[in-house]
């Protein structure tokens, strides 16, 4: 009897790219729901626009590059990039913000480098940085979170603002948007307010920005679930959060009036989204065990530096891209010890 042959191993494979991406998307749900609850319909619009643009752009580019369209779209990586970028955008930004950012992310940062697996930079963060540099005004259009005494736009008003740029008669752009806690902190610390005074502001919650703290808790839960399901390695989130905590603790202890608390830094802005969903993007991150620790720690430290002394209130995107640049070198310098060999340092 004759049989087909192939090379080993033969057991059914356990993991699969699209299942991996699906898991990551599923893990985004708690954080995304919190975001949706606190910041309204704009979050959903951003997600839909970014996801749709990502899929179309990916399909078009694959077609142009002569690659299998359906099979590659099926891996879910483009959709995930769109969702991650969509989650990072201000909910009241005009619709074309999400379109431009996603197009740049997929077309330039991903496909022009060779598609999945070949992009040296995190595509979603490239898209985000392009937007924040090119359209700084539109990128501040965050509404006040639910539960704050402020004007909050309903579904139709948000639709009209996002897609037509039209505001209700009784509102101005200033009245329907609000500075984010990171922004407030940066500005007020610059004006020599003490941290205690800033924290007393109604826009702050129990330990960080109102609403933001729960968004971060949501992403933290999703992230821990991802780690339990072995979709991500623990090293990058742990070292990123650890280093952010330690650096902010150091400055907080040194001068509690002039620096935000460690808890505030951990639960503000995109910290948890960044730690579990963005920094862990395998393609652009460091891959060795020790390397992942350095890579995560670098992102944590850079995030703190940019938040505290940089020109932008939030630094995750820049920190991730800077460490993306360092990732190949980190990998090169942190090889694991090969079984039966001495330490690589000793060897050389």
């Amino acid at each position: 009897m004759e049989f087909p042959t192939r090379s080993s191993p033969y057991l059914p494979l356990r993991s699969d790219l699209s299942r991996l991406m699906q898991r990551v998307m599923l893990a985004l749900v708690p954080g995304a729901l919190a975001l949706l609850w606190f910041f309204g319909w704009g979050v959903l619009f951003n997600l839909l626009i970014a996801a749709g643009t990502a899929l179309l752009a990916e399909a078009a580019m694959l077609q142009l590059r002569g690659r299998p369209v359906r099979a590659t779209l099926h891996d879910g990586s483009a959709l995930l990039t769109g969702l991650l970028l969509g989650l990072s955008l201000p909910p009241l930004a005009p619709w074309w913000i999400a379109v431009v950012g996603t197009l740049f992310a997929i077309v330039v940062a991903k496909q022009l480098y060779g598609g999945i697996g070949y992009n040296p930079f995190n595509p979603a963060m490239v898209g985000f940085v392009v937007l924040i540099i090119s359209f700084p005004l539109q990128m501040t259009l965050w509404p006040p979170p639910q539960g704050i005494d402020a004007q909050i736009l309903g579904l139709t008003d948000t639709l009209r603002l996002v897609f037509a740029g039209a505001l209700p008669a009784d509102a101005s752009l200033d009245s329907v948007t609000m500075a984010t806690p990171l922004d407030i902190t940066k500005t007020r610390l610059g004006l020599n307010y003490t941290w205690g005074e800033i924290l007393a502001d109604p826009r702050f919650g129990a330990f960080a920005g109102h609403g933001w703290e729960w968004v971060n808790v949501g992403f933290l839960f999703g992230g821990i679930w991802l780690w339990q399901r072995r979709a991500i390695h623990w090293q990058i989130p742990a070292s990123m959060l650890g280093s952010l905590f330690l650096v902010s603790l150091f400055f907080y202890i040194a001068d509690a009036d002039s620096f935000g608390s460690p808890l505030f830094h951990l639960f503000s802005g995109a910290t948890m989204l960044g730690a579990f969903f963005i920094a862990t993007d395998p393609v652009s991150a460091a891959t060795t065990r020790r390397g992942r620790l350095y890579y995560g720690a670098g992102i944590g430290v850079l995030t703190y530096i940019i938040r505290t002394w940089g020109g932008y209130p939030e630094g995750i995107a820049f920190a991730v891209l800077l460490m993306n640049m360092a990732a190949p070198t980190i990998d090169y310098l942190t090889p694991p010890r090969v079984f039966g060999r001495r330490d690589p340092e000793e060897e050389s």
Partner: protein
Amino acid sequence: MQCLMVTLLSQPRRIPGGLRLDANKAQSLQQPLRAAGVPERLYIPLSQHIGDAAEPLVEVGDQVLKGQLIARSPGYISAPVHASSSGEVVAIGDYPVPHPSGMQAACIVIATDGRDQAAADDLRMENVLQADPADIRQRVRDAGIVGLGGAGFPTSVKLNPGPDREVDLLVINAAECEPYISCDEALMCSRPWEILEGIRIMRHALQARQVVIGIEDNMPNAIQCLQHCLDESEETGIRMIPVPTIYPAGGEKQLIYALTGEEVPSQGLPIDLGIVCHNVGTAAAIARALLQGEPLISRVVTVTGEGVRQPANLEVRIGTPVAALIEACGGYTDAVARLLMGGPMMGFSLRSDTIPAIKTTNCILAASYREAPQAPPASPCIRCSDCVDVCPAGLLPQQLYWYAHARDFDRIQDYHLFDCIECGCCAQVCPSHIPLVQYYRFAKTEIWSLESERQFSELARQRHEARLQRLEREKKALEERRAKARKSLKPKAGDADAKQAEIAAALQRVKAKKAEQSVQARNTSELTEQQQADIAAAERRRSPGSGQP
């Protein structure tokens, strides 16, 4: 004498990397170990081991007996081959043999006569445990015993630690780590005494100070059987240590690490640590040969998978075609989709079931589509580094893949390609379904062939240079000979003068002749003008073309 002391860990260690896989051993252990019987034809390959192929000692038409030597080993790293049953040699030639490439190689084909008549044995030894280790090695060698764990390295070589080395620890490898394979477990359950005797012989041959049986902790029956044996025999020098079940804990270097915490040096051997490792089946084969006089003509093979009706462990004659083994287990089921020899992680797929089971065949896996599916299409590597976490060798599989893909064979060796044991863990967890092991095998083969090409061209260069030097030498020698000849002529200076004189004399004669002619010409001065004119005319006629005399 090099004395290395090895300390066994009180708590065996988990090997680095590795995978927890479904054991799937129960299917084949439901039935007791039984003989597969003698097939009509035995296809006995001449190369069933690492090292040189054996050389046939029989011819077509010869009658052979069971256990008769039919091919002898030509070198130290080699093993002889014996007839697995009695019958007639009907062919010696190339037939398909177990090899991933599906290649053919030299086999002796025996048409069995059903009598299974044994040859007189000359392997049996009295008082083995008092015998000279060299004699034991010779008998083990004569019995054609090779490592039955899978690699097939000639056992007698591994029983010889060398003159300047002492063996501190003998590790008996009973950690059958690949899924589905249960032949060692079946052997331990049914013939533990044979194993124990074999271990004692090995210990004596190696003069090993300690002996430990490393076994995976998911075989309680085998552990119980062997332990019972050890207790009954009041053997205190042999310990059995269960190690955590994790693939590939049965790898030699991995098992040694699990038991001792020591790492066999990269590109080194266990003996570098004072350790020798033998498979549990090999121990039984040694006992059979030296105590019962039977050379290695059979072994235990697991026949299992959803593709076979009654999975079982069989005592199989070397050279039995796989089809006969499947038949002995009730035949194929409809689900059969793929035929594997060895386990599903490191085995290889067979094109046809006419291929024989050989000394290193531990398992025939008739797998269903569910058990061994088609290779899914590969996507690009996303550098998730799951492979890094499971690599038992501490390598960076994604970098190896990258450089194998790019055919950068220098860089790939910087990443220690040759420390890869091809266990398949990386490919097993790859979410992009990249056949990583295949890439590593490709790179290794390519590097080997480049290396042999380099050696070949190096040899050609050396030859060319040698030729140039030889020509130069010959030229010099010729010149020297000439110079010598010239020198040797010098003392006979008289001869040269004689020659000179002869030449001078000849010249003289020529001159004289010329002078004579000129004298005659001078005689014409006295001729008349008319006579002179006639002579001139005659001269002119004599030499046409010349206008003047």
